[in-house]
């Protein structure tokens, strides 16, 4: 059985101005995530990929369709139920510079979700230490503030915070987009390592096909609020069926001048043919 | 666009009704005191009650209010309880006097603030320090003290300007100018203190934005960048400050009218309030709200003209 099921999800945002019509951002998207699996959600701006993530997290209310976790519907549940759900579903956001409260120490940031769930201060402290180990940060980080750390390190803290309640699903919203090339690879490897060790599932949102390819078992491609293709990561990211995915694939330049020239010509061929 | 303006004015009228209603409700608690004041402390309760009945103050408050409202809409704001002069014309006349101080002060404030603010923000150095100093002094010295000091120095000691009194423009333009000079200076200094700092701050923020750098890379001249681009974008929030400044000046004008014995709106309100002259108070309130509505509307329209994102379509 799937861990997370998104069923014909629709989300509409209020239009700008007094009496403007609402704008539908997702037009009935369905997907699912199995336990321990990474589903990569790829798309460009305006595709709605971030909105799906936020809907799963309860930060956005669906206007149609359903979201089910472990078989139970979680769309539009009460705040108290959402609090209980937060032990199972967590998040890592894209911007390491604003996703951590700048005035709280790392220790407090990591302890917060634990304390909410009722852990004692002592238990929280020891769990925080374990978490820091798990993400490869020194234990003296507990006393320090976010501004003393680099972007990559802050993202590790965000990952640690997501892991704190031992969730079964983590929504990852472009978690490596703001990081340097060298840091990106390391943080992605950390994600993979954690998944292997704990069996957590990821709904991994990104605009970058190569990132998604690296970490996903299956991939779903979104275009303007519609799901255009789903399949195994290998298939979708190397030999996709849908023309949009093909366009996406060819558009990303590769770091090899000769091959890039070939791809450019192929892209032009396809564009002229369509 | 026209419908927008009409809607705003309509909202202003509704607001005026609301505010005058609340004011009347509050004032209605003091009918007795007013009647007593008119008749003098020696009047007996019976005489007081007779007066109240004669004036119609014993009717239900809501009825009295609607009576006033119906007349007000037709332009009849009643007469003063004490002088029996019609309220409407009196208020307008007094308003004219106050505006004749505030409007020049506001214009001067805007000109000086923009000049100082822009110069300080785009040049820095000594000019910046001077501008900050002026702002600080304007803030620190309460208008009250400034007014008194200026009167003492210029009017009493040097005898250049009249210490008190107001000469209407129609009567003698030169004398009018002399009679409003010190009041305008006092208001302007306070206004500049506030606004110059705001303009400076916004200009500094604006000059740090990315598009300014890009404009430089296209070879635009410094003047064009500072005035045509930065100032225009910085002006939008500054406009809001200006309308607030206008409203604040009304308050400040009150004290100035007292110090300089000017027959303005503020002192009119003050005396009416002291005496409990209810019809006058109502008239003053109504006109006040309408005036502020118009000022806010003008500010919003100007803002829309300056800032395309804020436009109402």
């Amino acid at each position, binding site marked *: 059985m799937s861990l997370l099921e998104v069923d014909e999800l629709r989300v509409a945002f209020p239009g700008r101005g007094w009496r403007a019509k609402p704008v539908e951002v997702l037009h009935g998207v369905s997907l699912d995530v199995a336990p321990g699996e*990474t589903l990569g959600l790829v798309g*460009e*701006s*305006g595709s709605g990929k971030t*909105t799906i993530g*936020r809907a799963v*997290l*309860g930060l956005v209310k669906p206007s149609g369709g359903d979201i089910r976790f472990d078989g139970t519907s979680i769309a539009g549940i009460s705040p108290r139920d959402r609090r209980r*759900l*937060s032990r199972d579903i*967590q998040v890592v956001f894209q911007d390491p510079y604003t*996703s951590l409260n700048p005035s709280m120490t790392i220790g407090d940031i990591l302890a917060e979700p634990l304390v909410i769930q009722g852990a004692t201060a002592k238990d929280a402290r020891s769990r925080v230490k374990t978490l820091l180990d798990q993400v490869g940060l020194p234990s003296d980080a507990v006393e320090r*503030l976010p501004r003393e750390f680099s*972007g990559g390190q802050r993202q590790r803290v965000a990952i640690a915070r997501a892991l704190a309640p031992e969730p079964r699903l983590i929504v990852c919203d472009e978690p490596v*987009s703001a990081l340097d*090339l060298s840091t990106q690879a390391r943080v992605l490897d950390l994600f993979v390592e954690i998944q292997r060790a704990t069996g*957590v599932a990821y709904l991994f949102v990104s605009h970058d096909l190569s990132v998604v390819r*690296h970490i996903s*078992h299956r991939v779903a491609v979104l275009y303007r609020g519609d799901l255009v293709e789903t399949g195994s*990561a290998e298939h979708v*990211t190397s030999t996709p069926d849908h023309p949009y995915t093909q*366009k*996406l694939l060819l*558009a990303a*330049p590769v*770091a090899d*001048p000769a091959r*890039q020239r070939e791809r*450019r010509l192929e892209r032009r061929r396809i564009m002229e043919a369509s | 666009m026209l419908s927008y303006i009409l809607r705003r004015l309509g909202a202003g009228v509704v607001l005026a009704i609301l*505010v005058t209603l609340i004011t009347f409700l*509050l004032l209605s608690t003091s009918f007795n005191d007013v009647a007593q004041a008119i008749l003098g402390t020696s009047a007996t309760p019976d005489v007081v009650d007779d007066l109240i009945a004669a004036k119609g103050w014993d009717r239900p408050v809501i009825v009295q209010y609607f009576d006033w409202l119906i007349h007000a809409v037709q332009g009849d704001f009643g007469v003063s309880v004490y002088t029996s002069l019609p309220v409407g014309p009196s208020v307008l006349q007094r308003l004219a006097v106050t505006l004749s101080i505030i409007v020049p002060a506001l214009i001067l404030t805007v000109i000086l603030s923009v000049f100082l603010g822009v110069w*300080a*923000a785009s040049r*820095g150095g000594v000019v910046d320090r001077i501008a900050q100093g002026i702002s*600080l002094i304007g803030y620190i*010295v*309460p208008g*009250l*003290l400034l007014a008194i000091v200026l009167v003492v120095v210029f009017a009493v000691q040097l005898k250049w300007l009249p210490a008190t009194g107001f000469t209407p423009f129609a009567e003698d333009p030169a004398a009018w100018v002399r009679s409003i000079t010190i009041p305008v200076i006092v208001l302007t200094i306070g206004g500049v203190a506030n606004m110059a700092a705001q303009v400076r701050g916004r200009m500094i923020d604006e*000059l*740090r934005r*990315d*598009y300014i*750098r*890009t*404009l*430089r*890379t296209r070879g*635009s001249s*410094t003047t064009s960048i500072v005035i045509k*681009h930065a100032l225009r974008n910085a002006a939008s929030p500054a406009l809001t400050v200006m309308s607030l400044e206008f409203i*604040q000046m009304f308050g400040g004008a*009150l*004290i100035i009218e007292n110090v300089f014995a000017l027959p303005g709106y*503020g002192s009119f309100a003050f005396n009416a309030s002291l005496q409990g002259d209810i019809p006058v108070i109502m008239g003053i309130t109504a006109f*006040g*709200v309408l005036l*502020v509505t118009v000022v806010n509307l003008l500010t919003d329209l100007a803002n829309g003209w*300056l800032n*395309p994102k804020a436009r109402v379509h």
Partner: protein
Amino acid sequence: MSDERPPQTTTGTVTPPSTELLVTLENAAKTRTSTWRRILRDPQAVVTLGLLAVIFLLGLLTPWLAPHGPNDAELSMINAPVGTPGYLLGADEAGRDILSRLLHSINTAAISALIGAGVALLVGVVAGLIGGYFGTVTRATTEWLFNLIMTFPGILLLIILMPVTGGDYRFTMLIFGVLLSPGIYRIVRNLVLGVKNELYVDAARVSGLGNLRILGRHVLFVVRGPIIIAAAFMAGSAIAVQSGLAFLGVGSLQIPSFGSMISSGFRNLYIAPTQFLWPSLLLGVITASLVLLGNALRDILEGSMPKPAKVGRGQRVLDNAGEATAARTGLLEINDLAIAYPRPSGGLNEVVRGVDLSIARGQIVGLVGESGSGKSQTAFASLGVLPNEAVITRGSIRFDGRELVGLTDAQMRPLRGKEIAYIPQEPMSNLDPSYRVGAQLVEGVRSALGVTRAEASARVLALLERVGIADPKRTFDSYPHQISGGMAQRVLIAGAVASRPKLLIADEPTTALDVTVQAEILDLLRDLQSELDMAILLVTHNFGVVADLCDRIAVMQNGVIVESGTAAEVFAHPTHEYTKMLLGAILDESTVRTDPPVAVSDERTDR
């Protein structure tokens, strides 16, 4: 708790931080002193706080210090001069001791400040928190209410309500506090709105924190500083207004206050000028201290405001800079360039530490590096648009044989936009939001080429079409917020190539764009380059972009170039460790997850 607006990404990507941001963050990280200590170290704050403390202490000790009651009138002492025994500062027109009245007035002022500022803060903060945090309907209601309050000039309303308040100054101050609250409301509401959309608040919500806890833990903290600052200013305001009202004679004449003392002093200005002096002085000192304290607190709690930026000033250059050590003949020759920023503790911190770069005519050179490497700084220096604080400590930049380092802004201007052009990274924030797109481009063309407006408009329209914009006229007439990110970038490119520049400096031109749009922009740049025989300095962190477009590459790390060569060479046989590491970090196309999903056994019993 649902969001009301779609997430605000213009283009869908978050980009790595710039060197300037990193420098600021680095400096901020070094200051760890607690807030209290910083307040105590600031002379302005300490002096004003001390002064106010002394004054209000005197007020509190009045019952023991004042030789007479505030209203004890002694007929024989009318207008007694300063120094009269028992009447240290003299007596007023009614024979009341000025010193005693002064001391009592301090208390009146203090109470006015407490009530006025207290009520304003209470009402404003609570309303601001509610109006800022909760949904649109709640906010609309509070907005409307506070606009209503702001509508009326405060003092006038207070006077009109005199019959109701009975002139009791405490009641009056309460109403005044309510009248002051919209200012605080607005500040708090804006802060809350800002924080509410921060990701760490979202993260807190996902962690299961309830609204109240979020307000208390995360939101309130941000609001602390501005509230304290506002409190200082409001206290001053309340005292000033109460004095004004008392001056006018509003309220009970029995209550001693600065205003009533100034009023009677004014009346007696020629008989006994010192009567006016004492209350004015004390009132002035109190209001001045409060304002100065507010300013000092603002500097400490919110950091100093950014300093003025001299727009027309050239780049700061140290004396020994501006000399090339080797004669070379490229179009752009950068030689041992070093750029530094001042440290808060003094001294200079070099971010570019001796860069050598060479671009020939018609050549496309990629300057590659991670964030903080200093690549954008190098580009800005070549245009002469580094921020005011930056200093070029050594080195030379030669364009077409001419030395650029040390030129004044006026000397650089003829080159900019005409021979050296620039396209920025983030298209939207690089267009003036108040002017139509067409007008902005026309201005640039006119200042570069000196043609008439009609001619410039025609050229711009032709250019917009050339860069692939479907409806040039419509875009010409649009405002920046009405066009998409991709279109904005095309517009900026059009503006840059209008004068057929010899060198185009492109600073991460596609980083903020979607990948499909990026491909089109790269195609456009390639076409334009060959058509105009333009040299391009392409600053980027993306090796794919470099492979697509560049003839030569220079790899930059920590302010120095570690490797350079033709693109083919560097990609095939990188020599420097850093280059190898970067190329190795690129996610290759063949790595796919081969391990199947691992289902975890339920260890937690309390699910």
